[in-house]
């Protein structure tokens, strides 16, 4: 008998605290896939037309993650996140969002905005030691996909797609958005096979600087993100 009383008294004290200030964690996960399967790095796989490829590296930046609800912006994450298929802990972003906000869609930038690109050196995920910064021509690499494909007549059949660039007309970062369920974590698939089927290693094997082609491929990269429907 005493217990419920104690509890409700406690609740009365605690309730005022759960107003505006309280936050909860909203997880946003990025799931590298190859077609329908989870992406396996360093393993031979086949594209739809049978072309054998191996993926050795997939890294990209996600920034300005924004949650929207009822037509309004309800939350903006100021951080830039480096997602690296090799590092499982990097695949999930934990957002500390205010309790009680409405969420019906999410949007984010695939890549780094122009202002950050011209503002000097940063630490954390943006530290130039992460291998996502061009040394000889300032700017972040937004998306880095490397591997091998027999169709590439390069050293060890390597392909390297380094997409970036912050200056017009070759501004490279792409905004991506989806409708999402109001509750629960958000899982986003990133389909490397779909990217390669349109990037066509063999027709081109290396993109290493900002260009029109890099912008086209960034649009392709943006198109291979989708809300996961694993159940």
């Amino acid at each position: 008998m005493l217990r419920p009383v104690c509890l409700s008294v406690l609740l009365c004290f605690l309730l005022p605290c759960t107003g505006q200030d309280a936050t909860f964690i909203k997880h946003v996960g990025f799931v590298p896939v190859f077609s329908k399967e989870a992406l396996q790095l360093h393993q031979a796989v086949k594209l739809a037309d049978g072309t054998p490829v191996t993926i050795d590296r997939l890294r990209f930046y996600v920034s300005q993650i924004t949650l929207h609800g009822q037509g309004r912006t309800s939350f903006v994450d100021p951080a830039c996140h480096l997602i690296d298929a090799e590092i499982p802990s990097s695949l999930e972003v934990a957002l500390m969002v205010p309790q009680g906000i409405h969420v019906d869609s999410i949007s984010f930038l695939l890549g780094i905005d122009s202002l950050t690109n011209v503002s000097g050196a940063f630490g954390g995920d943006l530290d130039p030691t992460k291998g996502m910064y061009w040394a000889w021509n300032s700017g972040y690499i937004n998306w880095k996909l490397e591997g091998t494909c027999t169709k590439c007549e390069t050293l060890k059949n390597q392909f390297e797609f380094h997409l970036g660039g912050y200056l017009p007309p070759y501004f490279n970062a792409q905004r991506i958005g989806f409708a999402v369920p109001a509750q629960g974590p958000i899982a986003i698939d990133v389909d490397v096979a779909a990217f390669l089927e349109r990037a066509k290693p063999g027709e081109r094997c290396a993109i290493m600087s900002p260009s029109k082609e890099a912008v086209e491929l960034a649009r392709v990269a943006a198109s291979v993100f989708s809300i996961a429907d694993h159940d």
Partner: protein
Amino acid sequence: MTERSTCNVVLKKCRATAVRFSGHLCGISRPSTPILSLRFFASWRLCGYSFISAFQRSPFSRTKPVLAAVLLFVLIAATTQHPEPVQLKIPAGWPAPTYDFSKNPLTKEGIALGRKLFYDPILSVDSIVSCSSCHLSYTAFTHVDHAVSHGIRDRIGTRNSPALMNLAWSGLLMWDGAVNHLDVQALAPIAHPDEMGEDIAHVVEKLRRSGRYPGLFYDAFGDATITGERMLKALSQFELTLISANSKYDRAQAGLETFTDQEASGYRIFKAHCIACHRPPLFTTGAFANNGLAVDTVYHDLGRMKITGDPTDSLKFKIPTLRNVEFSFPYMHDGRFKSLRQVIDHYAEGLVQGRTLAPELRDGVTLSKNERTDLVAFLLTLSDREFCFNPDHAFPRE
């Protein structure tokens, strides 16, 4: 073990675990109070800290923890000058710097660390080349008498190393503007296969393993963690202190000295033909222009167009400062001219009327032999010996 050495052990331990004590206090400037040895302070602070935590663990007194807390507070407060803020002296009449110091506040320790890095071949793959190999302080930080700079393993770079000065006012860097911020500039020579041939992640690894650097990063940033960002910002800090503003020209402007007739005549010619691009007080606008050089036959360097992809930028290069131009020979991005006289002869006789030639030079520059001599005399008034021989810029000796 003496007390001092205990402190050193504690200090080392704390550095290793990268405790951040006063990082948030960097950049807060206070009127300068007498500074005791900062190292000494730092070790005392940590020593005090461990002493206090031992104190707190002792079971018998309730007042002691309070006392300890007060003591700790006092100890931390006493060391807010670590690292010691530095205010850059802006020469009178100069515009505000373009560098955003709020993101990288200058400190005595940060500048010292940057200077050490600048002179340390640890930044290159074969540990022979340092920044100073191509940027020598005595010659306004350029590579004297090399048309294009030498790098590691005697490979030859494709461009002439520019003089380094007044970088707090710089816009885009490099001859083609490939680099957009001083903080990220060092990445280019470090990674360039013909310059230092290293990888920034590996350099940071080498610094972490080195005996001295963790302590120096601790002094500069309040904790011993070495990151790419911190390394680059320290280098910037040193480079930002390289201000040249005490040439005869500056003293003449301030009324402290007078030009000779020849120099005064040269100044008039300069104002008529050169000032649009080489604009005082920096003697550059920071913009890009085609000053009528024929495309070089070896590298076919198209300059700015390589970066923007815009054909109207073809053969445009960054307008270099003319301060200390006496020392920055050979001249132009590829070092094609050996003397100032040759440069002026180029402007007077050699302008190539290309599609992108600067409008200021379209009509040519007419200069008599005497006028050319006067112009050279004026350019020599831009030399700043105090800058070149400033002991604070030279190799750090300890």
